[in-house]
């Protein structure tokens, strides 16, 4: 099974062609990021400077607007068109329309019960096993309908990984936690290197390299959660969905996870549900605010660049929420 970026790009007709157009700062960006981008992307050099790189370079997060508007040209991974979800008789979310961009961290925020986790779990079909679940509208992944009858949900999840709210390592050794899925997917060669790469990618290697054979249940909560991230990236997915990944962790472990998200989005597209607005501001390029509408159904209120959504929200409900005047 080939899962190179190029095959996925080729399949996503929506995204084709938008990639080559260089922005105004394209030449400089390509010079700065080209080497790294070429190493990590087989689909070609993307001359866009990412938010994380700007932060790393000491530039303000509120970048020139020309840079942010360039985002509309970014490759689109998920296209949600008027998506609604029903659990039996009860409608959980209604009319969610948004595009999620490649190599962005996209945050979903909003009050409890507003459907942000439901929407996240739709993105890799984790809701399928819930009795009475049905999805309306259209949810495209690189142009393919995720809920098409021919779309195989095991294949969907193989490309779109997920990390859950509570760390859920398998009761196996640290090594086997990471190697197990890869082995089952036929990635047998160079397993030791794969495990090390995944653990390094999740910033866990130094802490566990001497006890790879001991049980993962003996790790701290923060370490377990990073192990779960390592487990997800070990199979080289395209997208990582994070469902409140730091809500069960202390501030230090949370900071580690957030740093990790900045690094991971260079390689993966990240969608993160969070209750913590500061966290969304710290990690997300774009933020979607979900809330309940008049009939108590979760829906997307506003979706914009993170800095704009938090500094100049267009919708009064967003403003009330982010200033703590909700409800």
């Amino acid at each position, binding site marked *: 099974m080939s899962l190179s970026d190029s095959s996925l790009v080729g399949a996503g007709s929506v995204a084709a062609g938008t990639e080559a157009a260089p922005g105004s700062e394209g030449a400089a960006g390509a010079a700065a990021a080209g080497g790294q981008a070429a190493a990590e992307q087989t689909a070609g050099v993307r001359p866009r400077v990412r938010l994380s790189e700007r932060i790393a370079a000491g530039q303000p997060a509120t970048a020139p607007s020309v840079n942010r508007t360039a985002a509309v040209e970014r490759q689109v991974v998920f296209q949600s068109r008027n998506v609604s979800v029903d659990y039996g008789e009860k409608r959980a979310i209604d009319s969610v329309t948004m595009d999620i961009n490649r190599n962005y961290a996209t945050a979903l925020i909003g009050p409890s019960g507003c459907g942000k986790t439901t929407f996240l779990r739709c993105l890799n079909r984790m809701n399928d096993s819930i009795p009475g679940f049905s999805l309306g509208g259209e949810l495209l992944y690189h142009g393919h309908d995720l809920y098409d009858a021919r779309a195989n949900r095991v294949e969907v999840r193989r*490309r779109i990984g*997920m990390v*859950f709210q509570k760390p*859920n390592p*398998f009761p196996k050794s640290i090594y086997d936690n990471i190697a197990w899925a890869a082995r089952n997917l036929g990635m047998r060669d160079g397993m030791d290197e794969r495990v090390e790469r995944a653990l390094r990618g999740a910033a866990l290697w130094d802490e566990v390299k001497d006890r790879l054979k001991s049980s993962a*249940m003996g790790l701290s909560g923060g370490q377990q959660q990073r192990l779960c991230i390592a487990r997800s990236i070990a*199979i080289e997915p395209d997208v990582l969905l994070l469902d409140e990944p730091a809500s069960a962790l202390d501030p230090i472990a949370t900071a580690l996870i957030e740093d990790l998200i900045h690094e991971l989005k260079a390689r993966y597209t990240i969608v993160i549900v969070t209750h913590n607005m500061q966290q969304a501001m710290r990690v997300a390029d774009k933020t979607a605010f979900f809330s309940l509408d008049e009939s108590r159904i979760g829906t997307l209120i506003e979706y914009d660049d993170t800095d704009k959504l938090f500094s100049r929200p267009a919708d009064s409900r967003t403003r009330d929420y982010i200033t703590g005047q909700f409800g």
Partner: protein
Amino acid sequence: MSAIPDPTYALTASGNLRRRQAISRGFVAATIAAATLAVAVLIMLVYYAAKQGVSQLSVHFLTATLPPGSPGASGGIGPALAGTAEMVLMATIIALPVGVLTALYLAEFASPRVGKVVQTGLEQMAGLPTIIIGMFIYGLVTLHFGQSAIAGALALSIVEVPLIGRASLEAIRRVPGSLREAADALGVARWRTVVGVILPTASNGIVTATILAVARAAGETAPVLLNSNPSTLGYQFNPLQAVPNVPVEILTLLNLGYPSAVAKAWGAAFVLIVAILAINIGARVWLRRSERKRGL
């Protein structure tokens, strides 16, 4: 006296509290008495079997053959122990996969409606009178092919399947759903998840269930009475022949009636009780310890 006590009154029992306390104490005493009786019966049973049987214990008794012609006069229960072990082993080889796969079906794959029917069936199966299981295999197998260890083992496996199935189901259902989600989110097919995550996590419970089922089958009389009740009492391992076994041999010795035979029956009974208790207690201790070790 009014129902509402004077708040300034001393804090001694007032109103009907004395009566309520007496009833409460009486109820607690009744439960303690019942629990004591239940344990006492077990202790008395073991004590009586030990008193009658412990004098028989010797290596000779555990290995020797009962002499033909005058069984019970001398010799031991070696062939019966070997035959019971053989039949229980065969029964478990049959029952373990059936029981575990049934439990997996119920826990992982069955629709709620079908699952309920199958689970009810499993529970009814556990309550089947064992003589009926013996008769069923007798009519199905023994009547056509004669008595054999296989027929006895088949009957015992019917005893074991619901025990293994129900306890395995419980163990599999105790596997946290978050582990299934984790495996699902890694793009692993369901059966791989079952083999790679769910069964290993539930293995303690499944092993314990199996050991308990072995202990139960070892002591069952009715299923083997009609299906493996040999006329000769020597060592016999051919699964196509009837093999001697401990429960039926106890019955045979008791039926002989004379004192030395009855004493041998008690000896065999004591061996059986000790073996079953040891297996049971050992399995539970092992389960508790290994579950704690895994942090479950």
